[in-house]
């Protein structure tokens, strides 16, 4: 039974991939590009050691972002504010780490904690608004994203948080090597897999354990399934909302760190600011399951990284954006179809059982 459920859960993502490949192929034909040429170029490049490293690094970022979104989803909370939470977390972490000259383990611990606390605090604003004022977190978090960007611009341009790190580029003070987590080049000799990759694997395991093997995880899933049932069984909904938002924010705070500590070394004004939205798509794709999210993040990163090769082949890189959109679209749709069918067959089963009872009585 479990195996069957696992297999049926694979159908939707597979269908998404197949449909997106088919539609992409049609578009490629339409723009007179070679279909097999494009796909084989993507595959060939995507499996080269350097691209594999880049994919792992980007997937690390995406995984954390999706995890932050997923824990909210588990409780029917829609945290669109991962963007704001992670940029603020990354700026704070960058500003603190840039001024630290401590042994690596201590420096890293402080940096990571700062990022999580700032991310959680920013999500906490939305949580407070929701529990005390009934403001939907969808509205508040998306507004808080804009406020976060404005705060960062202000901090970097007008305050001593920012310095000129290169010509025309202002950012937080460059983090000394003792504060970086650059990782190791174990796939490609010249490109390093971010050190945060390993931290992220640990976080993924921890997420699975907390959600499936602890009282808190049970409360969280129960509240997500049925808030009224949870309340009857003594779970405080407001407390759960607050805690979940805080954890989601703390996870979101980490999203910028793989890149900040593995590569950038300074949060400057070119730092990407929309990884949070990618996280939403991947959480949907992975159905909030850490393993599913890991696969989703890898697929997404593969498409993003190989888009660079596509433009060299003369194909617009936006092709991969179309593929990503289609995958999510089809997957969400097929999950919904499967869910409705399940409900229908459940109803049929109950109806049959009742009929049988009535006949025998």
């Amino acid at each position: 039974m479990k195996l069957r459920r696992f297999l049926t859960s694979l159908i939707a993502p597979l269908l998404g991939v197949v449909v997106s490949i088919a539609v992409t192929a049609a578009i490629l034909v339409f723009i007179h590009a070679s279909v097999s040429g494009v796909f084989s170029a993507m595959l060939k490049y995507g499996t080269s050691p350097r691209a594999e490293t880049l994919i792992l690094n980007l997937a690390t970022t995406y995984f954390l972002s999706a995890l932050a979104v997923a824990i909210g989803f588990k409780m029917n909370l829609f945290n669109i504010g991962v963007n704001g939470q992670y940029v603020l977390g990354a700026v704070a972490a960058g500003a603190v780490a840039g001024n630290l000259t401590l042994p690596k383990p201590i420096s890293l611990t402080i940096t990571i904690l700062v990022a999580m606390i700032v991310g959680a605090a920013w999500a906490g604003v939305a949580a407070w608004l929701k529990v005390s004022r009934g403001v939907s977190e969808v509205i508040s978090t998306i507004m808080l994203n804009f406020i976060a960007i404005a705060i960062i611009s202000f901090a970097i341009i007008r305050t001593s948080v920012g310095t000129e790190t290169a010509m025309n580029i202002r950012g937080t003070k460059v983090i000394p090597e003792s504060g970086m987590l650059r990782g190791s080049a174990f796939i490609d000799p010249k490109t390093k897999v971010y050190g945060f990759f390993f931290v992220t694997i640990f976080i993924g395991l921890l997420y699975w354990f907390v959600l499936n093997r602890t009282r808190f995880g049970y409360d969280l899933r129960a509240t997500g399934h049925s808030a009224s049932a949870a309340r009857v069984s003594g779970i405080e909904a407001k407390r759960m909302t607050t805690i979940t938002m805080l954890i989601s924010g703390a996870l979101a705070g980490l999203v910028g760190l793989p890149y900040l500590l593995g590569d950038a070394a300074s949060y400057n004004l070119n730092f990407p600011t929309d990884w949070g939205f990618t996280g939403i798509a991947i959480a949907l794709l992975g159905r909030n399951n850490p393993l599913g999210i890991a696969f989703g993040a890898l697929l997404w990163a593969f498409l993003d990284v190989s888009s660079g090769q596509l433009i060299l082949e003369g194909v617009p890189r936006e092709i991969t954006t179309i593929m990503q959109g289609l995958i999510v679209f089809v997957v969400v749709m097929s999950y919904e179809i499967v869910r409705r069918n399940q409900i229908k067959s459940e109803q049929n089963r109950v109806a049959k059982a009742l009929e049988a009872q009535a006949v025998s009585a």
Partner: protein
Amino acid sequence: MLKGVKIASVLAAAALVLTGCSKSDNGAAATTAPATSAAPAVKVGMAYDQDGKGDGSFNDAAYAGLSKAQADLGVEIKEVNSGSSATDASRQELLTLLATDGYNPVIAVGFAYSTALAATAAQFPDTTFAIVDSVVDAPNVGSLVFAAEQGSYLVGVIAASASKTGHIGFIGGMEIDLIKAFEAGFDQGAKSVNPSIKIDSKYMGAAGDNTAWNVPDKAKAASAAMIGKGADVIYAAAGGSGLGMFQAIKEAGAGHWAIGVDSDQYNVPSLADYKDFILTSMLKRVDVAVYDVIKGVVDGAPLTGVQNFDLAKDGVGYSSSNPAVADFAAAADAAAAAIKDGTVTVATK
């Protein structure tokens, strides 16, 4: 059971589409094969940031230099763009791909590439790199910087001379030092003509807000507000957002002038609707710089080190495509001469 059949049929349909498509492969491949018969020696790789070409301004100026080199020097060209949410890692990968494929020179358009270009240039010492609007200190990199404040001074002189209300405006893209230099030069130039002139200024986004270059609606609203307060000449240094300023000036009608930036926007085809209102453009000759870099490689004398394109080098200036600017040309040329001989120094902030 029915569910299974449904899914299977969708899969089968998808498979049909797939095979149907792959059949047409060969024909499609033939049409896209590069039309070059004899392989030229020099392959130029050009990397734009974000969405790249099509802004009718900065990036298109770089493209103008590239296409001139393609026509005059017969070089092969390849253009790439970094897309939104690009990181230093993804920019570096683009440059690496170009360098690995034998593109030389590799030209990065925009200061966002500086970190990525420094790293890539170190890995490919035999390739010539160039970067626009930034300085990367490496033996094989040409850093192409422009004295935008000097060119802006000239259009400031023109704006103040053309204004009948004694009130002009400035629309900036992202609020960073690079763009503030445009504003500083513009202000100084305008005040040299009319010390009591009123200058409104508005930026389309805070530093870090990457939408700043692409919000024509916002630029239109800001320009309309300036016009409402009495401004009759507006200068926009805001990339693709500048379009909104042109729209606002056109709606305000005759007697109002727009001043373009980077490219000669009077002659940009996509802006043809507004050309009668574009008095002049501050030319930042990215095209000249790009062409010079390519020519250097073709001639075997690569242009490296800091290349400051100022008035003296014709790296900046103003365009006289619109005949209406002739009335103010004397004043602007006098100002240019004063800057060249050092009588006037233009501040950058």
